[in-house]
Structure formats: structure tokens, C-alpha cells
């Protein structure tokens, strides 16, 4: 798996569209989720995700291959910058209380779905209330299931500091949700 990814990354760096296409298929949902949970707006998340991959493809030669984790790290880095730029140039236009249902959530039973939707909505409201680094850690650790070591590498912090941030972020989330 990692070898295959490495091969795709090398070919993409050499300018092979099909290989970048495969990387897009693999990483696009991860990047989309990351951005969507930060901006809480479907169209804006789509637009920013598109910009992230366009920018990655056009500047692929700038990526220095190390290992598979570093490619997603690079994409996360571009995503964070795009989100920051987005908020710099445009104030959020959506009231967080009026966010629509999350897109493309797997269907459950109707009763479960209702309960699920309410909980999702509550957590979705809460995530943007965390600071940027806390949002990143919560998304990477508990939604994308990355190990503290991987998150530390991506965010260029120590593992200890990631554990501290995740502890603080979860407590904050619990406090917000219990209010």
C-alpha cells in the first residue's frame, strides 16, 4: 500500500495525470472533510477542496517525497493555508446554528438518523469553536484516526504536545456540548 502510494507520488511529481488522479481519489474525501468541518459550509468546502488539489497538482514538483504520511501532511498544510486565506478575505456568511445537514452521511434507520443528526449538528457547532490547532488535532486524531505520532509529524509538534492539545480539545468539546 505504502509502496504503491510512493510510486503514485513519484509519477505525479514527474507530471503523470493518471497517478495524481489516483492520489486525488484517495485523499480528496479526507481533505474535503477536514475543510468542511472547519468552514461548516458545503459549497465553500467544495470550492476550497478544489483549490487545494489544483494548487497541489500545479505545484507538485515542489513536493519533496519522504513517505506516504508526508503527502497527506502536505495536503493538510495547503488546506490550512486555504482556510486561513478564506477567512482573511471573507467573513463567514453562515450562521452556525443554521447549518444544513451534513452531506452524504451514510443512511441509518429513521429513528437513529434523527438522533444521529442532532448529535452531529451539536458536534459540528462545537468544532469551529475550538482554536485552529485544536480543530486540526480533533479531526486528525478522532475522525481520521491518525496516530499521535502521525499528527505530530503533520503539525510539526511533539507527540506530548499533541496529547496535551487533544486532551484540552476534548474537554472543551464536552463543556460546549453539556451547556
Amino acid at each position, binding site marked *: 500500500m505504502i509502496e504503491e502510494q510512493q510510486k503514485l507520488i513519484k509519477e505525479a511529481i514527474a507530471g503523470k495525470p493518471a497517478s495524481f488522479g489516483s492520489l486525488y481519489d484517495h485523499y480528496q474525501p479526507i481533505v*474535503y472533510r477536514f475543510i468542511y468541518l472547519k468552514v461548516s459550509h458545503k459549497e465553500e468546502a467544495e470550492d476550497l477542496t478544489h483549490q487545494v488539489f489544483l494548487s497541489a497538482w500545479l505545484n507538485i*514538483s515542489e513536493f519533496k517525497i519522504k513517505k506516504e504520511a508526508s503527502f497527506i501532511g502536505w495536503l493538510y498544510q495547503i488546506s490550512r493555508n486555504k482556510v486561513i486565506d478564506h477567512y482573511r478575505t471573507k467573513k463567514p456568511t453562515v450562521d452556525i446554528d443554521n447549518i444544513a445537514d451534513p452531506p452524504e452521511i451514510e443512511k441509518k434507520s429513521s429513528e437513529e438518523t434523527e438522533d444521529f443528526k442532532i448529535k452531529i449538528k451539536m458536534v459540528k457547532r462545537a468544532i469551529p469553536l475550538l482554536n485552529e490547532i485544536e480543530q486540526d488535532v480533533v479531526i486528525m486524531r478522532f475522525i481520521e484516526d491518525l496516530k499521535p505520532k502521525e499528527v505530530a509529524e503533520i503539525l510539526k509538534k511533539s507527540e506530548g504536545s499533541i496529547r496535551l492539545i487533544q486532551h484540552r480539545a476534548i474537554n472543551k468539546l464536552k463543556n460546549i456540548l453539556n451547556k
Partner: protein
Amino acid sequence: MNIFEILKELKNIKPDQEYAKQSRYLILSQTPQTDKKITVAEIFDWIFIHRLATAASLISVFILLVILSISYLPGNKNSLVAEADEINASIQIKLNDIGYQLQNPTEINIEEIPNVQKKLEEITKLMEEAQTLNENKDKKIEEYLKKIKAAQTLFTEIESLLVK
């Protein structure tokens, strides 16, 4: 309420499939900057490259004409415009793929070069036929699309021929 369970459920958030497809097409139809030092002209016959470039530019111009022609027709032709757009993006991606293959001579099947040249001639012929269609007042958009699709198929074949 277990916060970790809810967070895990958020992994089910997925982008819209149609959006993802369109975005992919648009991105891959762009040409990235690469560090390649070896140029095709150093290795292959200049005419081959020249013909590929000519065919590519003819196709781009032609597709633009088709899209414009469809837009001016009465009635709802949105689906045809969308189809033409999609084929256009797909051809651009194939041209980028072929461009990549040509810049990586070690990955090319040199024996197939004469067949590739033949297919380029077929593409050029298709374009000439399409231009004749364009001069005809009784424009048949479906016929245009057939020609572009045929060119698209030929590009796919070229791509496969070049792979070792």
C-alpha cells in the same frame, strides 16, 4: 453521549460524487510544472511532436466551436453542452497523459510510434470532417459530438499504445 463515537461518525461525511468527478476533470486538465530535463525533441522525430501538437490544438479549437454552436441553438441543449465540456476535459487529461509519456522516453513503447502516427492522421481527418459539418448550415450537434468522441477514443488508444 460518547463524544468519541460521534466524532468517529463524522468520517461518513463525504463529498458529492458529481462535484468530485467534475473537480477531478478540471484539475487534471491543467498542466503542472515539472522538473524534467529531457525533452521529447531530443529523442523523437520533431514531426511527430509537431503533429501531436497540431492535432491537439485543432481539437481544442473545434471543441470550442462546438460548444459555441450548441449554445446558440434554440431549445434546451444544456446536456449536450455539458457532455461536450466533459469530453473536452477528458481529452485535455489524455493530452497531458500523452505529454507525460513522451517526456519519459523510457516508459514509451517505441515500436508503436508508426501506429501512433497513423492514429494522429485519423484524428486530423476527423477534425477535417467536423469542420465540413460546421460549414453546413443544417448543423447536427449529435454528429459533432460523435466526431469528438471518436477523437477521444483515438487518444485513449494512443495512450495505451505508448505504454510499454
